[in-house]
Structure formats: C-alpha cells, structure tokens
C-alpha cells in the first residue's frame, strides 16, 4: 500500500523549500514577539539582539533561550503575544512540579495544532474509514483535545472517551469496532491486560495505537503490539509548544518526524548551551514559528535526544528525533559518559528486576564509580548462590551494553532503598557531597 500523507507538500518538501519557509517564518515570528511581548523584548535587549539581526535560521543561535522558569515567571499573561480577544482556548500542564504553565491558542493555533495531530494519525494508517478511540484525558491536558481535533480532520469516527473507566472503554471499543486507539502507553498496557482478563481479544479490531505523553521503552512497544495485535506509534509534544503532534512516528518506527514547518529543532549541550552538530546527543530546543498567541523562541525542553536527517522509507523529509533518552536534569556524567536513570530502569525491567533502584556515583582514586543498588524480590531469589551470582553477572553485562561503562550491581534487601516523603531517592552523587 502506498504511503499516505495528510499534508504531503510540507511532509515531503525538499530541504531547500523547508529552509526557505523556516527562514521566512522565523523572521516574521521574531518581529511578532518583539512587537507584542515586552518580556521577550527585554530578554532580547539584554542579549543585545534586535529583529534586524535575525535574517534566517542561521541566526537562530543569537536569540536567548527560554526555560520553564521563564514560563512560570511570566504566568499567566507575560508571554501572550495576541490580545485576549483573539484567543479561544487555554491548555495547561499538570503543575505537579510547581506553578502551572498556561498556554494560549488562537483559532488559527488550534487549527495548525490539529493539523499536526492529523499528520500523526495518517502516518499511523488512519483514514476516514477508521474509528478512532481517544483515551487521553480531555480538559486542561493537551492529549485528548489535540488527538480529538486531529481525528476529526482525518475524518475518522471519533470516540471522545477521555481517560479512565476501563469497562466503558472496552465496551465502546468492541461495540463500535475501534481501529485506532490514542492513549498513554501505560494505559495501553492496562487495557491489554483487561482485554486478556475479560477474554475479549477476538472482539478487538485495533490496527494502530498512537501512544505518548510519557516515556516508554522498545520492550513496552513490542509487548503492547503483541498483546493488542496492533502497530504502536510514538508521538511527542509539550503543552508549552502546543501539545501532541510536535513530532510523530511513521511506519518505519525509527524515530519521530518533527513538523519542521511549525517547529525548528536544535540540539544543544545542556551545560555549555552551545549548539551541537547534527547527529549529536543533547538537549532538544524548539522554536515555534507559526504560533500566534503563545510563540516560544528557543524553548529548552530538557529532553535529551538525537536528530537524524537520514532518508526515511516513508518518503517524509522531516527531520527525525530519537525517542528521548532522558531529561537533562537527571543526566549524570560518569567517566565522561552520559548516564540516565531511565536507561538503568529500562535494563532492570527487561531483566525481571523491580524498578526500585538507587544509583550511587562516587569518585575513588580520581576515577568515577557507579553502583546500582537493586532490591531482591521473592521471584528472583533462590537457594543457589551460583544462580544469583549468574543473574547478577547478566545484569552487569546488560548495563554495560546500555551504558557503555561498567556499573557495579549490589543486591539489597526489600524496602532498604532510602525513601524521602514517599518518593525513592534514585541518585546519590557522592562527588557533589
């Protein structure tokens, strides 16, 4: 079957066409924020930059960065670039780690956002023949509204389920023959389990799932695909930049195409803030070049990833981002190598250990050491010292394969890993103490 696109002229544009479009849109966007957002104008003035300095994407590096702290400081209206009369919607982050971030949308912003989500649905094989069950939360969270709008644009019959109420989800899924499911990967796993328990597997018609809003591993993908009999697609987005659909996966499943006609992506070193050459691993930075109400220039996502311009078999020319390896806040540098707790967690889960672990980094004789404390469980425990030692060795090699450096494993008793306020302390860096 030939690959289908929602907006082929953009998704398959030549690099020259795309750069020309980005240049034009960036110049206009910089002028727009300069004229309309005093907060931005001040930041630019502090850095000695005016809109005249920005002639195209090669000048992007001259602009100041924007972080979540800026968004909190400017809450609620400080970064608004359009009169409230022109705005039709807000979405917001969960605010679990501090003050909420509120993003504003004009009707045009909503429209372009829904286009991005529609591209993701079409890339996952969606057409107007499909029944698309949206089981992301609806409300302030961007997942439900974004995918709902995208599904409408594609012409799918949209089931606006929102999250939770598994019995009702399964009833609609079977009665109305849902063919596409959009939800978080952990909820997809939960649905798969519930389907198995209720013996509904042969009544499920799902062919594709679009899963995002949380980190998930390749193992989880294979697991969900096998259990639900569908193809699982990744989708990426941030409330700050619009919501899901900033980047989406195609049938090749080797990374997510970034909608470059709306977002310019850069990779920077999170410590030096220097822009890194193509193919480097670093922090992802986005500049939204079409947003009217809430444009962000050089917004630091804190997500660590790699961009790739290798030719994709789907025909799209949009740059691809690797599934984020972790958050720059969590990144540890051990023996000069970047280590993310999420990588260690993935290895533990793959090898049948609980995700309750602690990483201890230290410096002994001028050399970094890393030790992973893992809680023993009744399932892996046995009377054989040889068996336990063997499992430990396997875990050490799996960690070495993932991290590229030797990490010592120490098996500890259950509940012995220190917790503070109910939350486990994942990393102890003794080099900083």
């Amino acid at each position, binding site marked *: 079957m030939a690959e289908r696109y929602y907006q082929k002229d953009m998704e398959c544009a030549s690099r020259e066409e795309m750069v020309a479009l980005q240049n034009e849109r960036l110049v206009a966007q910089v002028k727009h924020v300069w004229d309309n957002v005093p907060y931005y104008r001040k930041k630019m003035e502090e850095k000695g930059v005016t809109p005249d300095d920005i002639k195209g994407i090669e000048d992007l590096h001259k602009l100041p960065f924007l972080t979540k702290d800026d968004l909190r400081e400017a809450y609620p209206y400080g970064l608004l670039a359009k009169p409230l009369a022109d705005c039709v919607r807000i979405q917001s982050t969960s605010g679990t780690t501090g003050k909420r971030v509120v993003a504003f949308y004009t009707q045009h912003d909503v429209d372009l956002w829904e286009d991005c989500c529609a591209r993701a649905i079409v890339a996952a094989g969606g057409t107007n023949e499909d029944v698309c069950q949206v089981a992301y939360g609806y409300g302030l969270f961007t997942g439900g509204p974004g995918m709902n709008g995208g599904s409408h644009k594609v012409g799918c019959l949209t089931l606006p389920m929102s999250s939770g109420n598994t019995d009702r989800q399964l009833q609609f899924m079977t009665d109305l023959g849902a063919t596409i499911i959009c939800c978080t990967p952990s909820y997809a796993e939960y649905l798969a389990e519930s389907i198995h328990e209720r013996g509904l597997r042969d009544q499920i018609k799902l062919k594709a799932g679009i899963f995002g809003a949380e980190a998930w591993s390749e193992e989880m993908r294979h697991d969900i695909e096998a259990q639900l009999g569908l193809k699982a697609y990744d989708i990426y987005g941030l409330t700050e930049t619009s919501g899901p659909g900033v980047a989406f996966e195609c049938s090749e499943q080797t990374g997510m195409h970034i909608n470059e006609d709306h977002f310019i992506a850069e990779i920077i070193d999170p410590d030096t803030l220097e822009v890194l050459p193509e193919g480097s691993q670093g922090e992802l930075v986005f500049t939204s070049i079409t947003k009217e109400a809430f444009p962000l220039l050089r917004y630091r996502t804190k997500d660590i990833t790699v961009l790739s311009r290798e030719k994709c078999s789907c025909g799209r020319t949009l740059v691809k981002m690797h599934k984020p390896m972790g958050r720059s806040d969590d990144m540890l540098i051990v023996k000069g190598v970047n280590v993310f707790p999420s990588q260690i967690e993935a290895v533990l889960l793959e090898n049948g250990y609980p995700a309750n672990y602690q990483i201890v980094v230290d410096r002994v004789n001028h050399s970094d050491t890393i030790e992973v404390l893992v809680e023993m469980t009744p399932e892996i425990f046995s*009377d054989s010292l040889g068996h336990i030692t063997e499992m430990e060795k396997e875990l050490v090699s799996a960690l070495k394969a993932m991290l590229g450096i030797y990490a010592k494993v120490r098996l500890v008793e*259950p509940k012995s890993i220190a917790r503070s306020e109910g939350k486990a302390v994942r990393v102890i860096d003794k080099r900083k103490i």
Partner: protein
Amino acid sequence: MAIKQITVFLENRAGRLLEITQLLADNKIDLRALNIAETTDYGLLRIIADDTEKALTVLKENGAIATTTDVLAVAVPNVSGGLNTLLRVLANANVDVSYMYSIFGHADENAYMILQLAEADEVVALLQKNDIIVATEEKLGIN
C-alpha cells in the same frame, strides 16, 4: 525423607544476622542448624527451624526474603573418619553435593549433617543400602 530448609537473603551489614535470629527467638522458634554462604555484598542464611511454617511466616511478615529447599539430614558416626564413610559412598556413586553443614547437638550417638544434592530420593536409597541413617523430621524434632 527430605526435610525443609529455609534460605534467607542477608544483606552484608553489621547486625543483620542478629536481627533475624532475634526475630526467630522472639517468636519462640528454635534452630536445629544454621549456615551462611556469602559473597562480598550479600549472604544466604540457611537454617533448619523446629517449626518451618511458622519461621517462614514470621520472616516474610517482617520483610525478609525467604524460600524453602529440600535437604537431607544424614547420620555420621561420632568417630574419627566417620564422615569419610559417607563421602566415599557418595563419591563412588558420582553424587554431586551442592553444600553441607552440621546440625547442632545430637539426637543420638551420631552427629548429623545437612546435605543438599540433586536426585535426593535415589541418594536416600543408596545411603540406606550402605547402612547410613537418613533422619526424619520427627527424629530431629521438626514440625
């Protein structure tokens, strides 16, 4: 003829063994045998308790990781070279012993050893054919 041994995961830290033995003592559980196999980071505490079920429950309720394994308690004549007779019988029959340790005190004139090995049933027959006593749980006062 097999008797139940309890194996407990033991983190290598000062006082951890005492915490376990104190917990068992507080619950009026007597130990018939005890052994520790260890690596640099952790150990396996192996015990024969007078009440296996109760010991297991108490340990698990207190967050310890424990499992049971079938082992044999074999009599060794309390004379010089007494152990050699047993080991020779096993060696001649190519029986591989994973580990062994001794039981506290004496149920009779013999000393008793705990043996962990594969194909225990066949070994029991072999030992009995060679007039070596394999003790039952009753004989050792185990419930």
